[in-house]
């Protein structure tokens, strides 16, 4: 019984547009089309402020992440260079028997 109700409901929904008519456009639509044909390239797009803010924030975030990465890289290179110099002096001193 429940299955029959369900099937009937589903079929009613599926057939709900069977006797439907068409949707009609507003009368002024043709004038709008005519205007667009006469001046084809005037249709500009404005970017909403929220979209602009999101894009700007993404760029700022990207720059910050890159700057942090760059600073870390410079520090790492600097430390690496220092430790190589220290290592060089250690080896040289050992070779010369200074054992400092």
């Amino acid at each position, binding site marked *: 019984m429940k299955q029959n109700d369900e099937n009937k409901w*589903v079929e*009613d929904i599926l057939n709900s547009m069977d006797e439907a008519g068409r*949707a009609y*456009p507003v009368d002024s*639509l043709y004038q709008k089309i005519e205007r667009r044909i006469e001046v084809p390239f005037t249709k500009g797009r404005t970017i909403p402020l929220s979209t602009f803010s999101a894009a700007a924030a993404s760029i700022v975030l990207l720059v910050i992440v890159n700057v942090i990465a760059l600073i870390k890289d410079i520090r790492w290179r600097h430390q690496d260079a220092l430790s190589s110099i220290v290592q060089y002096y250690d080896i040289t001193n050992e070779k010369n028997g200074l054992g400092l």
Partner: protein
Amino acid sequence: MQAEEIMQLVSDGDKNAFRQLYVMFKDRVYNTCISYLQQASDAEEITQDVFVEVHYAARNYKGEASVSTWIYRITVNKCLDRIRYNNRQKRFSFISSIFSRDTGGMIHDKPHFEHPGAVAENRERAAILFSTIRQLPENQQTAFILKQIEGLSQREIAQIMDIGEKAVESLMQRAKTNLRKILSNYYNSKEGF
């Protein structure tokens, strides 16, 4: 005058012929658009786009397909493009809502849609049908809308979609099977409340 003859005049730049063509096809184009996009403002915009393209592409019309098929093809493609664009916007709305000053909600969600052509006693049912059509894959959506809403024949749909009639039949079957599944789930979830 036949649509093909009018088309010839349109390609020669005849304004009256273009108006005649518009009158001939505006309801079919708009009805298809509103069935896909489920929003009057979007449907109006895409109807404009379709006729602007028809105007400029008239010279390229070779007469290989009927004018009706050609215009339906442009309509379907433009509607699908708009749906893809809306979906991209919807995904982006998550980020943009963070920066939205007002509600911060999903600003691109479609409201409950009632097809203006639906018979009064079927309005609610039709609204449920349209919300489930949205969940179908693009080609099943196209087959279903052109057949059930626009009332086109299998042959016309095959020409518009550039596939065989058997393929249209199979798309329709799959669309109906999927819709039945979605609707059954909806029915059972409603029962649970």
